[in-house]
């Protein structure tokens, strides 16, 4: 829409002060950017203006004299003269505030918002000292639970429509709306439809009064009692900017922090409310050693570390493997990798659990896109997980590109996804037939899709649609997508700091800093600093599990990893841990896997340890410490340093920041990325590795592996994650635990008919020796026939292995 005759900048005058501002910018934003704050309630920079609250009334000079306009709906034009301080403006603003307050309950002393309330603040700055209203105020039943997480007080509500617009415009689930009219206008849900949005917490955060409150925070603290620190959400790999807030060493809430790069200030509810695990009474606070009787007993750190050092030292290095590291910081992952490679001396390291993609593809696929590229994309291809379930805020960004910015959106997935309603084109296929679908697209069999894919710039978000999908399919898709016009790739994996862990070398085929583990030059450079490295490549998670189960490996170090729940073949994982001679688990909780360990070491977790994390773009951001960990828990790097000393080595990890300096020195793609460089400054964007002057040693060019996957004859299993699950961190979060959906077997109605099963009937899905589930049937017409969808990560489905060909039928 660039009009070359239109000047980019114009000059306006606000209260006598000249400002050079972007042409067409909204007056309220232009003035604010130049230090003149115009009060507002309904306007929000990330949503379309509506001019409803009328708080931002200012006078603009017109040929017919000054005219009252709302600054939030008025675009600037050259020479515009604005008065925000005239008597008329002041009276209008004071009048609006008086109107807003006449029916407001003024129950500030018992309101969660008191102390950080825009209505309070702006009344102090712009409002009348007292009310002239002597009538009875408006009354509603209050508060009402509009969802499992959010309560609504319609008396406090000032009807700014921020929440309803967010649900409609941003998250795309308009489950709250204005009802009635005039003085009886109220925000409400529809009958029998709760505000069950994955993003409902954002409405609480942007509510300019205390009308919407969140259960997990309600009545827990006053704002002035909170200590806060900016950090990065680690619930998934999007890396949303957050403010972590605590009182009396208890984390009480996360708030979204606005930045252009990642989250625009939004958070998903899992990220926002998932913090509850931090305060869980189930957190480990003491080292545990398993006795002869198979029961854990509490131990001192000295004793526990001696046991671990003895066992790891007595088992040969290459017979020990390490799994995990994706839940912590880069510093922890780096220290872990260094410990395993130089002290234990083993190459068997994997931060993924067979549920991901080739590490080199994830961290080094080229050409690579970043999230902000979605804003300028002509076409977006999403062939990967359902973003709404697995990377929720990335879903918001793609949705915005498709709805507000006019991008074409092509979604390819085995069933419906959250983006289908805004997709330009949606293609559905059976798991196992992805290669055929790709060939059909590449061969022009879907001309309407080809047409939009040929409009560049194209951003391709490529990941694993489900756990039964051949991991190489993503690379084949990427090989196709990278040849599209002005294409960029964004390879997707979900687990929080998995990109950081891989970048730190927690992969069988990677060394720190995106160096291929087999690259001679890269190995030599690292060996200069560390001494000889074990042979590469090592075993991946599947290889480690098999190796343990078959006795080729003897020891296992788990770093925040729960393969018994998370590995794609849970039965094998259980067998592997049972067979292992020695297992040590670094964890926050006694997870199913940690229960099978010989020693469990309590570590400090999120908000308790400082460091950096890397998101799916390769963007490095800081996480910060606000509270101490529970009991005797310690930072991972410190435990590893101690262990190294006991094993006769030196890890050199005196502090997390020391580790970060070593990363900046030794990990080529992280050169120059220091904590100082990441200090929260303007934009709060973090840094995308590698920096322009740094080296990216690995350029991974995806190729079409061809013919990967095969179509099962009977039923193809689509096993994919849902947002709310039975994972260890959700299970101990009281607000999130009840949100996990009922497990069910989803089948196309025609398949249900063929099986002679009705909706609600119990159906058995059997993956042979890799488990089976018997669950109620749900009709799901978005599936291709011959596909059965089972949510992967629920308590009732966790035992089902990721097997493509399954049998489905009524239980015998």
């Amino acid at each position, binding site marked *: 829409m660039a009009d070359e005759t239109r000047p980019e900048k114009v000059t306006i005058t606000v209260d006598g002060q000249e400002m050079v501002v972007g042409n067409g910018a909204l007056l309220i934003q232009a003035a604010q950017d130049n230090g003149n704050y115009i009060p507002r309630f309904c306007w929000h920079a990330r949503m379309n*203006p*509506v*001019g*409803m*609250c*009328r*708080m931002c*009334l200012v006078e603009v000079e017109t040929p017919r004299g000054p*005219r*009252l306009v*709302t600054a939030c*709906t008025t675009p600037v034009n050259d020479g515009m003269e604005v008065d925000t301080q005239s008597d*008329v403006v002041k*009276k*209008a603003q*004071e*009048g*609006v505030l*008086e*109107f*807003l307050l*006449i*029916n407001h309950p003024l129950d500030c002393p018992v309101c969660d918002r008191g102390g950080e309330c825009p209505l309070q603040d702006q009344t102090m700055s712009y409002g009348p000292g007292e009310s*002239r*209203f002597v*009538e009875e105020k408006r009354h509603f039943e209050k508060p009402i639970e509009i969802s499992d997480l959010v309560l609504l007080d319609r008396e406090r509500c*000032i*009807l700014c429509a921020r929440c309803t617009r967010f649900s409609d415009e941003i998250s795309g689930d308009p489950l709250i709306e*204005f009802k*009635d*009219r*005039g*003085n*009886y*206008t109220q925000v409400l849900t529809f009958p029998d439809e709760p505000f069950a949005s994955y993003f409902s917490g954002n409405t609480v955060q942007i509510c300019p009064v205390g009308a919407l409150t969140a259960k997990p925070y309600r009545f827990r603290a006053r704002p002035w009692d909170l200590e806060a620190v900016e950090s990065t959400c680690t619930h998934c790999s999007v890396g949303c900017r957050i403010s972590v807030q605590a009182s009396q060493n208890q984390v009480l809430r996360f708030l979204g922090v606005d930045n252009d790069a990642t989250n625009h200030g939004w958070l998903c509810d899992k990220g926002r409310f998932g913090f509850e695990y931090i305060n869980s009474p189930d957190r480990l606070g003491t080292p545990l050693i398993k006795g002869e009787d198979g029961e854990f007993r509490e131990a001192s750190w000295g004793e526990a570390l001696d046991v671990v050092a003895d066992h790891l030292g007595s088992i040969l290095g290459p017979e020990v493997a390490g799994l995990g590291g994706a839940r912590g910081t880069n510093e922890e992952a780096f220290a872990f990798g260094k410990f395993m490679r130089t002290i234990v001396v083993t190459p068997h390291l994997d931060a993924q659990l067979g549920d991901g993609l080739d590490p080199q593809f994830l961290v080094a696929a080229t050409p690579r896109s970043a999230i902000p590229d979605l804003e300028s994309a002509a076409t977006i291809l999403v062939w990967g997980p359902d973003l709404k379930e697995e990377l929720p805020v990335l879903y918001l960004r793609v949705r915005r590109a498709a709805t507000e910015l006019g991008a074409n959106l092509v979604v390819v997935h085995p069933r419906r996804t959250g983006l289908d309603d805004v997709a330009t084109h949606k293609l559905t296929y059976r798991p196992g037939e992805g290669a055929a679908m790709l060939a059909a697209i590449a061969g022009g069999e879907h001309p309407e899709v080809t047409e939009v894919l040929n409009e560049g710039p194209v951003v391709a978000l490529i990941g694993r649609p489900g756990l039964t999908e051949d991991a190489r399919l993503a690379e084949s898709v990427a090989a196709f997508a990278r040849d599209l016009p002005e294409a960029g790739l964004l390879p997707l994996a979900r687990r929080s700091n998995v990109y950081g862990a891989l970048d730190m070398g927690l992969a069988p085929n990677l060394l720190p800093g995106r160096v291929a583990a087999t690259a001679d030059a890269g190995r030599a450079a690292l060996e200069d600093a560390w001494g000889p490295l074990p042979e590469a490549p090592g075993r991946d998670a599947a290889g480690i599990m098999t190796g343990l189960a078959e006795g080729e490996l003897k020891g296992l170090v788990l770093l925040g990893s729960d393969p018994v729940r998370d590995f794609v073949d849970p039965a094998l994982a259980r067998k592997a841990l049972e067979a292992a001679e020695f297992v040590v688990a670094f964890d926050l909780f006694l997870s199913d896997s940690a229960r099978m360990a010989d020693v469990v070491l309590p570590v400090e977790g999120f908000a308790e340890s400082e460091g950096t994390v890397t998101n799916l773009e390769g963007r490095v951001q800081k996480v910060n410490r606000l509270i101490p960990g529970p009991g005797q828990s310690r930072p991972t790097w410190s435990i590893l340093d101690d262990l190294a000393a006991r094993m006769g080595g030196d890890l050199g990890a005196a502090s997390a920041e020391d580790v970060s300096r070593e990363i900046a020195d030794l990990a080529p793609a992280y050169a120059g990325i220091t904590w100082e460089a990441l200090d929260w400054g303007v934009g709060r964007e973090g840094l995308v590795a590698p920096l322009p002057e740094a080296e990216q040693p690995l350029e991974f060019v995806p190729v079409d592996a061809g013919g990967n996957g095969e179509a099962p004859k009977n039923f193809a299993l689509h096993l994919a994650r849902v947002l709310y699950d039975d994972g260890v961190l959700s299970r101990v979060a009281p607000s999130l635990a009840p949100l996990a959906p009922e497990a069910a077997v989803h089948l196309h109605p025609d398949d249900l008919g063929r099986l002679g099963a009705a909706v609600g009937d119990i159906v058995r899905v059997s993956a042979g020796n890799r488990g089976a589930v018997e669950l109620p049937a749900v009709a799901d017409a978005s599936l291709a026939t011959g596909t059965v969808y089972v949510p992967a990560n629920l308590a009732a489905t966790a035992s089902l292995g990721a097997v493509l060909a399954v049998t489905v039928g009524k239980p015998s």
Partner: protein
Amino acid sequence: MSDTLILTGRMEAHTSDSHTLKRYEATGGYEALRKALAEMTPEQVQEELTLSEIRGRGGAFFPCGMKWGFLAPSETRYLVINGDESEPGTFKDRQLLERDPHQLIEGIVISCYALGVNQAFVYIRGEYPRPARRVQAAIEEARAAGYVGENILGSGLDVDVMVHLGGGAYICGEETALLNSLEGKRGEPRIKPPFPAVEGLYAKPTIVNNVETISNVPWIITNGGVAYAAIGPEGSRGSRMFSLSGHINNPGNVEIVMGMTWRELLYDIGGGIPNGRELKMWIPGGASAPWFTQKHLDTLVTHDDVTAEGSMLGSGAIVVMDDTTCVVKAAHRVVKFFAHESCGQCTPCREGTSWLERMLWRIENGAGRQIDLDLLLDVSDNISPGLQWPPAMTTICPLGPSAVSPITSIMGYFRDEVAQHVDEGGCPLG
């Protein structure tokens, strides 16, 4: 006046069947359409409308030719006829819809030809089932006769007309709220700009015209814009329909040429006040309009003269009140209407109108305070800064300021009577 009955001549002469196609054709109906299609370009039709100097009859008196000129180019454009006649005391469009629907339909088709529009909508208030049925039946008749639909009269012009019934909200008479309602959304006014002529129905350029305005179009095309402009004084050309109600001997609709005095309209045409009572005040142009009193009887019934006296001809509703009328009760009733009809979207209207209503109720019912008199005015000022008409607004649309009109009227002309309510603890008229 019979020689200038532009709109109501047919229904006056043929009371039983003026709404039928047969009668319409027998009285020269659809000849203007034939003329326009056969002899005129769309630009020439627009030019006649401009020459006629006709101004919008919905209440704003905006020059119609100028409005048409603002219609932005686009492949798809719409014409929307505003028949959501909901202003208390206004019932003129009802008569036009019910008694002469073909006149409107012919006007619509000619207008669509002039504007390059293929789809017109007639938005009729939900409380007008019979007018809506009549218009729908007339559309069917016209379609069967080839005046509506594809290739109209063999000219290649396609125009479809769709009737839409409102859901009962006064605010949907405001053109942008009407468009929202037509789109299936809440009836809430939109922020202007963009104006409908640039971004209207379904974000396409749209002309919204009142029923009465478009009903004039056939006459203008048949007789020429110049002939229309020769009727009535400058600024108030043509005839105008008024709805008389209240304390008046001849209530009902009248079509008059503007320019007479209010005395002539109320006494000669309206027949004066019943039961020998005195005229106390009247609403000259719908519930939104500031009131007139005896001192305005010699003001001329023109847009300019009424505007100069701080009111408006508005929707054409004239509500007459005699000396038995309590000003507080009357104002309360009007303000209550606006408070009830506020869409609730913007703060000053949502909160302010109901606050005003409740203060008036208190005063009328004996719980008024002297400070309430100035409070009424100050709260009004926060809705309509300066308390002028046409109003400055802190609101999105003029509904809020409309609720202020009765307040400024009673406080301007009858402040003593309001104060007496406070002093005597209730209405002095009982």
